[in-house]
């Protein structure tokens, strides 16, 4: 089972879409009934995907080699997706207000809807992927484990790491998380991006320390 309660929180997030969609579609409102259909579909999609993510097996721990030990295990924090979801709400509320309580041209409610929906969608997406992702630093490798349909495991051997870079988007800076790019110098295929981790700098330093001790 995935970390956290993605099924529950996805259901909570879908409630405004399902409720408003049902009211518009089945109720006696002045809005076109069909306007409720896409809202219902989106709400149902969020619920279904949320529970799939919730119930799908989390990636198992990697099998360690002889004398290999796990130094640190990290999960992406959910601060960044929560911030995106939080940011989306004013836009979505504004879109609803402009749509149903004013007669402003459609460009205004739709503009707010697009921005809000983008933030919400990327927030939910990040939340789900974070729930299914685990990072490991062992004495020999850096491993990224992800499992949605099937297990995907990327790893970079310590001896091949050539660079450790940190980066933060504005929202990530705001909520105190960061990304660490671990490059092997062997092309993009041998690169791991550790996303949305707390204390990214400390984690990067820990990684660099491991490299030095290896060297």
């Amino acid at each position: 089972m995935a970390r956290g309660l993605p099924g529950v929180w996805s259901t909570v997030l879908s409630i405004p879409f399902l409720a408003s969609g049902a009211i518009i579609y089945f109720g006696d409102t002045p809005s076109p009934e069909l306007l409720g259909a896409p809202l219902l579909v989106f709400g149902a999609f969020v619920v279904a995907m949320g529970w799939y993510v919730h119930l799908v097996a989390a990636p198992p721990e990697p099998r360690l080699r002889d004398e290999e030990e796990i130094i640190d295990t990290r999960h992406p924090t959910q601060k960044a997706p929560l911030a995106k979801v939080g940011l989306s709400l004013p836009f979505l509320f504004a879109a609803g207000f402009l749509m149903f309580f004013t007669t402003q041209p459609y460009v205004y409610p739709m503009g707010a809807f697009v921005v809000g929906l983008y933030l919400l969608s990327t927030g939910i997406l990040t939340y789900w992927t974070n729930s299914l992702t685990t990072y490991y630093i062992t004495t020999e490798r850096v491993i990224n484990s992800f499992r949605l349909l099937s297990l995907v495991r990327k790893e970079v051997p310590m001896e091949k790491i050539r660079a450790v870079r940190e980066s933060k988007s504005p929202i990530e800076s705001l909520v105190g998380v960061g990304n660490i790019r671990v490059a092997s110098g062997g092309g993009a295929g041998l690169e791991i991006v550790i996303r949305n981790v707390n204390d990214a700098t400390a984690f990067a330093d820990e990684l660099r320390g491991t490299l030095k001790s290896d060297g």
Partner: protein
Amino acid sequence: MLRSGAVLTGGSLALGGTAVRPASAVGEDSWPMQRFDPGNTAYDPDGTALKSDATVRTAMTAPAGFGNDYLLADGTAYVYDADEGSVIAIDLVTGDSLWTNEIADQQVVPELVETDLLVCRSVDGPTYVLNRDTGEVTAELATPRGFHLGYAGGAEWFAPTVDGRVVAGRATAEEFRWTADIEGIGFRPAVDGDRIYVATVAGVAPEDVNLESPNEMDASGRLYAIDRSDGSVVWEVTHDGVGVRPVAVADGQVYWPRADGTLAAYDAETGDEQWTFTGKGGFNAAVAVTDNAVLAGNDDGRLYGIDRESGDQFAQAGIGERVRGAPVVLGRTMFFGTDDDAVYAYSLDDGEVLWEFETDAPVRSLTAGDEHVVVGSTERCYVIGPSSGVSTGGTEDGGGSDATETGDGEETNRGFLTNDPDSELSFLDDPVTLTWAGIAVSIVGIVMQLIGEQT
């Protein structure tokens, strides 16, 4: 195309001649009182009718009640909300709501406009005088509980009461001019010359009055002619069946539509019955009276054209559903509404259907003028105008697909960049398509990203 397959059979409802415009008319094209004039004829021979391209100007959640129409004056429609007890002024051209006054808890009906005043009566009794520009109540008359108001012009009004009286007053004077004792609960009087005519339902308590199904009442009908100067009863007619719609009077003839399916004409001077026409259902809508015809909607799904002199039917429009949106006539165009949720415009020259407009519920109220029609269903009030006007977007058969209701219950047409229907990107005016597009892009984007992570 006719949704109902309505047909006009028999001769056309050709009309001729003119009727006298009421003295209180405030404009060339106004509908200054209920049923247009003191005689309740609902016939404006000089009005400019909407003959084609019926398009929704606005639609608002304001249910209409039985037996009441709307008013028009100076480009403004005065409508009511039967549920909220409010009166609303609407600009005919833009469809904008100019003001709304929630006057009372019970239904308040605009009865007449006189100069800058709008006079409304509450079912609960009081008569309110409003400033037409602001909607503020400037005076309140203590008329007893009752339906409707008769008007003779010159600020002279007549109010039937539910306790078997008609009270007469002038302007806002506190004292009634006279009180006439009659039997039963009266409905909107018709005024002609020195007499007023009022139909009543006798033998039923006010709380048992059934306007929807009058025949279910164990009651009988009365028709009174009352002297306009002192309130004395000149003559009285008793009928076994009841009529709960206003009578009409024109040229010395009184027309009394009744729920038992009879429509009778009486000599206004003597009260002698001149003819009776019988429909297959009840006449539960007020009639329109032109120079040669009485136009009467029936519950049998027909709109009858009856010769005023002989009482013979010379034409009929078959709709198939109850005609309870009382007919109104502008020039040679007749409008009426039905329980199949539609309003029809008929040419009285050739009997052709000029247009029909689909509402969301049975039609109860109608008023026309200035090339507009104001329609009240049991759910909403619509202002319909020509498509060449401002802020249009509706269609002939059912209103605008891009009409959107605001939180105030008002519905106006919206565009993408502006609300002008001719604006750029008007093809994006459909919110359903836009929302589908946004949702679809989001879902596809999420799925693609997840698959990308997987690979």
